[in-house]
């Protein structure tokens, strides 16, 4: 039999699969392109499981293919094949081999389960963050620093970030694929803990991974990893007082219509996303990407994105709680301009 030839033919296919698996996906989004130790450990387990499973699949497919080619019925064949009841030897083999494979996979699985459930919240070097999910945005509170922000989780690179996750309404799930697997945010005061770190500077995409309503798919956020000094500057800048819009008409509208729910600096309400430094965030509402060189329909300049959002939030994120705010054109333009200039200068 030319069994080896068969395997040789299968080899390029396998190589292609490995290629597809190993080196793909955006570095800021893919679970296959881990950028932190937690995602790395999870990826290691995925690779181990994947290699075992590819082995299993190849063996079964090869057997299957061989059998259906070799034992297909020839035309007019009336013969009765030998009726075999079974074979204890074979049956023991295909019971024991899977058990061995499962032990190979099971031991590191259990190790990783316990590794990744370590509680780092008493680690003095760790940065504590309380994550609260809302329909359809993320609130990040740094209890040790006394600051709160929304949609963009700024972290010092390399440091362990400990997360306490909870929700203000329904179930959501906090997920930054390139840094760590997800954890659900449960209602009713039960908080879930996890940790991760990002050794490299950069912006990582985060997503909500539990169905939470119409805009579930649009509930994105960012994790921004910066150096220590920048992080300290960011934390300080977030607490600094913020000037109101210079145009009195815009300022009045902003204070009466926006600050009721949102906070800027030391002013405003705490219930909805904190807008301090919104001009230097990477996106508006998590999904309108701020860029001076827009390529896609969800991209635009910071000003354009803010304008688009404030004009009709429901158009961007159906079912969100902001609703349409009654603003004149002048107020709308002014507020969008003011917010787009509300930057925090912390990166060098």
């Amino acid at each position, binding site marked *: 039999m030319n069994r080896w030839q068969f395997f040789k033919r299968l080899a390029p296919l396998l190589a292609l699969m490995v290629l597809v698996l190993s080196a793909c996906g955006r570095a800021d989004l893919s679970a296959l392109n881990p950028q932190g130790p937690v995602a790395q450990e999870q990826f290691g387990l995925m690779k181990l499981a994947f290699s075992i499973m590819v082995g299993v699949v190849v063996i079964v497919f090869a057997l299957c293919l061989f059998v259906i080619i070799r034992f297909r019925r020839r035309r007019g064949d009336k013969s009765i094949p030998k009726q075999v009841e*079974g074979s204890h030897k074979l049956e023991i083999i295909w019971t024991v081999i899977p058990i061995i494979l499962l032990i190979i996979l099971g031991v590191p699985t259990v190790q990783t389960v316990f590794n990744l459930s370590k509680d780092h919240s008493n680690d003095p070097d760790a940065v504590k963050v309380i994550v609260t999910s809302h329909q359809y945005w993320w609130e990040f509170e740094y209890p040790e620093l006394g600051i709160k922000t929304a949609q963009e989780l700024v972290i010092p690179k390399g440091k362990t970030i400990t997360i306490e996750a909870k929700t203000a309404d329904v179930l959501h799930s906090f997920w930054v694929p390139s840094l760590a697997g997800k954890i*659900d945010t449960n209602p009713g005061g039960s908080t879930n803990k996890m940790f991760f770190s990002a050794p490299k500077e950069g912006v990582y995409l985060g997503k909500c991974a539990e*169905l939470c309503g119409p805009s579930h798919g649009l509930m994105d956020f960012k994790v921004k990893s910066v150096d220590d000094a920048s992080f300290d500057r960011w934390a300080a800048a977030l607490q600094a007082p913020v000037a109101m819009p210079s145009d009195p008409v815009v300022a009045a509208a902003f204070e009466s219509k926006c600050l009721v729910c949102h906070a800027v600096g030391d002013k405003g309400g705490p219930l909805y996303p904190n807008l301090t430094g919104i001009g230097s965030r990477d996106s508006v509402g998590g999904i309108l990407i701020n860029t001076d060189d827009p390529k*896609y329909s969800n991209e635009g300049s910071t000003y354009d994105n803010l304008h688009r959002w404030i004009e009709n939030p429901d158009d961007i994120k*159906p079912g969100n709680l902001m609703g349409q705010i009654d603003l004149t054109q002048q107020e709308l333009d002014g507020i969008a301009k003011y917010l787009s200039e509300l930057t925090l200068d912390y990166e060098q």
Partner: protein
Amino acid sequence: MAQGHAVKRYSGLMDWLTTVDHKKIGILYLIAGGFFFLVGGLEALLIRIQLWKPLNDFVSADTYNELITMHGTTMIFLAAMPMLFALMNAVVPLQIGARDVAFPFVNALGFWTFFFGAVLLNVSWFTSTGAPAAGWTAYAPLSGPAFSTGHGMDYYVLGLQIAGIGTLIGGINFLVTIINMRAPGMTFMRMPLFTWTSFITSALILFAFPALAVGLAALMFDRVFDANFFDPNNGGNAVLWEHIFWIFGHPEVYILILPAFGVISEVISTFSRKRLFGYSSMVFATILIGFLGFMVWAHHMFTTGLGPVANALFSIATMLIAVPTGIKIFNWIFTMWGGSIKFTSANLYAVGFIPTFVMGGVTGVMLAAAPADFQYHDTYFVVAHFHYVIVGGLILGIFSGLHYWWPKMFGRILNETLGKWTFWIFYIGFHLTFFIQHFLGLLGMPRRIWTYLDGLGFNEMNLISTIGAIMMGIGTIMFILNVVITNAKPQNAADDPWEDGRTLEWTIPSPPPEYNFKQTPLVRGYDAYWKEKMDGHKGMTPAEPIGSIHMPSPSILPFTMSLGLFITGFGLMYSRDWTFITEHIGFYVAGLGLLITFGSMFLRSVYDDHGFHIEPEELEDKGVKA
């Protein structure tokens, strides 16, 4: 025709509404399940059209969530389950040499409660507040009254509750049938594997569906009567729902797949002209899968935060299921080994099932590793996995079973050429749709998302997936075409149309007369009919002389009982809204429905119906044929 006494016989529509014949009920299940399979498939196509390009707005976000919720719910409860019950009804009594199921009346009741529950659920599409939209898993608090304010989730809760009653009593009926109604000599270890898997599935239904009934009842109390079972703001617990749902939901997966395993075992054995390899280990593996199926529910909840001990235990327990499943896969391959394999359409589906199910199985083991699942969970990787298991496993199994038993059910063989074309188009379409979704998930695409942003690298793969889905749609249409074409042909299938039949159903006419067996057969071993053939006999040795056969009377009561529950469901849902005439008119409507149901039950209790007899001289008369 000499008739000793009065016999109620209906014709036309009334015949179908009142039938208690398991073969006709099987056909009813098939028609209803097939219809909802088309509905669920249409929903799937709309989902795939919405996702074919980034930032698409073919459907709104709300409609999208309704589509995914109804697609999942419809496919699991209203398409897959009834199509399995169709096969079980059509085949199990024949395979064990019985004249009907143990409780023919209850069998009809099971169908009609399923049917009215299914209709109730789908009525939601036509209401102003739309269909349920909290996902088929209905996680609280999103499914609760605070966040699902319309009536959609009410339809889900009450529709599934009523349909679930049908499934539960159907399961009990098959348990009793298989335990009590086997022909002489048909010991447990001589039962065909499809009967075995139906038996274990029925046992799983018995233990799993009450959990769903309790969960749905609690959610109904939350929604209709302001209870707080799952409302954390008032002392309830949302995670409790996850546990209740999955302690039902995971066994449900095995309830679905085990009968498909049975079909594959029968088809592969028949078309390889070989005895099933390792029969007793197959039976043992089936029982083990059923048992382990109850031990692994929390693997759906690794990210819920149950802690490392629970996650580790459920990881290992889940991985263990791979062992009995592996035994089955290798036993099928070695059934074919040394055999004489004929590739009929039925066997194409069965052989195609093996590699597909292996792929669904290995991704299942990958998902079982909890820390890795933190990455896979709720992404398209999971979507790919369970479609490989449910479409690549269960649906291929059902198609295989339908092609295989179609001549027994309808007396006509489905067109083989068209059947093979259908297989290839459906099969290639299936892999095109779902293989690529593994990678979508790993690259960061969560499931249940209405749309995705451009530039994330998801575009091409989603487009390919949509093309595959359209191919599956074409395949399904071709199958229906095949049914229509075949139906126009004469009813001339032989008793044993595949010529290699091994089990009792192939010893009687296609389709069988209403009493199935003129004389109860004597079973002398496993593969009873094959054994007789090999011993040079033409048919089975009868275990009794020809005598009069007792038959159950048809009855409209199962229909009216279920209709009553349907009306009750409506009334409960709208108890708050309907204020015309008087305040709680909805509750009165619900009461009226219950009155119809209990009234029917009362009639059933007080009115003695002893059925009727078919006398020996009538047995010679072809006119009695169902």
